[in-house]
């Protein structure tokens, strides 16, 4: 185990989606699927072993970020965080995703790391994960029998476990149009750190009244989670200081963080409500 040397594996480099599906069908859970590699290779240097690594890098046409005013946003499996950062439509219509991509990793890793890869990594600290959960949307999985879509709400099933089957790989993350006002915020010591806490919100507003809200918090449970009691408090209410105070209290009561290398359970419980409140304020600003 070394940060210089990768363990041995067999590399699969499919040239098309059907070829990738065929390879996965054959090798199934012996295969690690790699998009940008900025996370997988670090994990492998730290001891993760996989008989096969399947790189998506030579499958043409997966590096798209497409926005349509009716259909919404589609982000292909090889679309990098840098592509998302440079996309004016994402910035305008999905600011939570844009803001999360802007601070995820460093400029160099953003040139290779992908949004879909961040979601598939299923880390509770993933910046794009918390943004995706607030925005809603679906992960599109490709298997031999075709594509299926999994709601982001059901996508992370446990710590680093997703609804993806071993014979499938994710080809796209998509979000519908007109999701509402959104924002992302996080707490770190310095910008390139993994978050000790992150949060994203998406608010369906009519005037100053919140018709519905999706509030997501990261680093407080085995997966990124929605805080539904806090969502219920917002629903149908005019957003003011007193409502926000109730929301913050509900968030802190609802989350179940742990102590780890980046922060403590106590701090995360105390601060998650404040962070979420500020994220709501950012979305409405």
């Amino acid at each position: 185990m070394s940060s210089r040397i990768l363990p041995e594996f067999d590399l699969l480099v499919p040239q098309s989606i059907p070829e990738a599906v065929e390879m996965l069908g054959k090798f199934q859970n012996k295969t690690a699927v790699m998009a940008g590699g900025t996370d997988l290779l670090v994990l492998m240097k730290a001891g993760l072993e996989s008989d096969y690594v399947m790189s998506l890098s030579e499958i043409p046409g997966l590096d798209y970020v497409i926005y349509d005013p009716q259909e919404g946003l589609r982000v292909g499996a090889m679309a990098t965080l840098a592509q998302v950062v440079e996309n004016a439509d994402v910035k305008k219509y999905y600011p939570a995703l844009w803001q999360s991509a802007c601070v995820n990793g460093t400029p160099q890793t953003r040139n290779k790391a992908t949004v879909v890869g961040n979601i598939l990594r299923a880390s509770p600290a993933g910046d794009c994960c918390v943004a995706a959960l607030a925005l809603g949307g679906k992960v599109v999985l490709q298997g031999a029998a075709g594509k299926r879509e999994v709601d982001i709400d059901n996508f992370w099933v446990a710590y680093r476990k997703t609804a993806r089957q071993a014979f499938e790989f994710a080809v796209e993350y998509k979000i519908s149009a007109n999701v509402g006002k959104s924002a992302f915020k996080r707490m770190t010591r310095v910008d390139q750190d993994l978050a000790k806490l992150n949060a994203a919100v998406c608010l369906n507003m009519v005037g100053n009244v919140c018709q519905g809200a999706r509030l997501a918090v990261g680093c407080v449970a085995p997966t990124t989670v929605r805080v539904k009691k806090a969502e219920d408090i917002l629903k149908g209410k005019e957003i003011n200081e007193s409502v926000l105070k109730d929301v913050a209290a509900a968030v802190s009561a609802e989350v179940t963080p742990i102590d780890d290398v980046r922060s403590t359970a106590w701090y995360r419980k105390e601060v998650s409500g404040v962070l979420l409140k500020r994220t709501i304020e950012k979305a409405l600003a």
Partner: protein
Amino acid sequence: MKTRSITLYVNGEANSLTIPVNRTLLQVLREDLGMPETKYGCGTGECGACTVLLEGGKSILACLTLAATMDGAKITTVAGLDEDGKLHPVQEAFVTEGAIQCGYCTPGMVMKSVSILAKNPKPTEEDIRRELEGNICRCTGYVKIVQAIQKASEVMASTR
């Protein structure tokens, strides 16, 4: 496959290589091609010492890139920046501004600086600091490095 045959273009030269698939681009550059100018820092994408450029000036980390997936790629390392023995304006500015102490982070810093200026020829100090987020200097700090990039930006604007 356990090995893959690729063509890797480094600083304009084509290299035909058959390499074990678990080798990083950094290992291939340093060990197989004998080009030690790209540095190993952390190996985990934190420090930027191994920064190299793809076509179009896009900066990537050689330590987190599988060389076997780079068939046909055109890479620039810090040794490929000079023209006919004349240093690149960024290199020149690092020298004149004294933006070097031990020098270990310098190749990565220079490559990142070149990519910053390729994208944004007139960056503000804030732009520069934000873009240098993934490059760590452990000797002294970033003041002179930022000044060097500003200086290079001026020089490049006046000679364009």
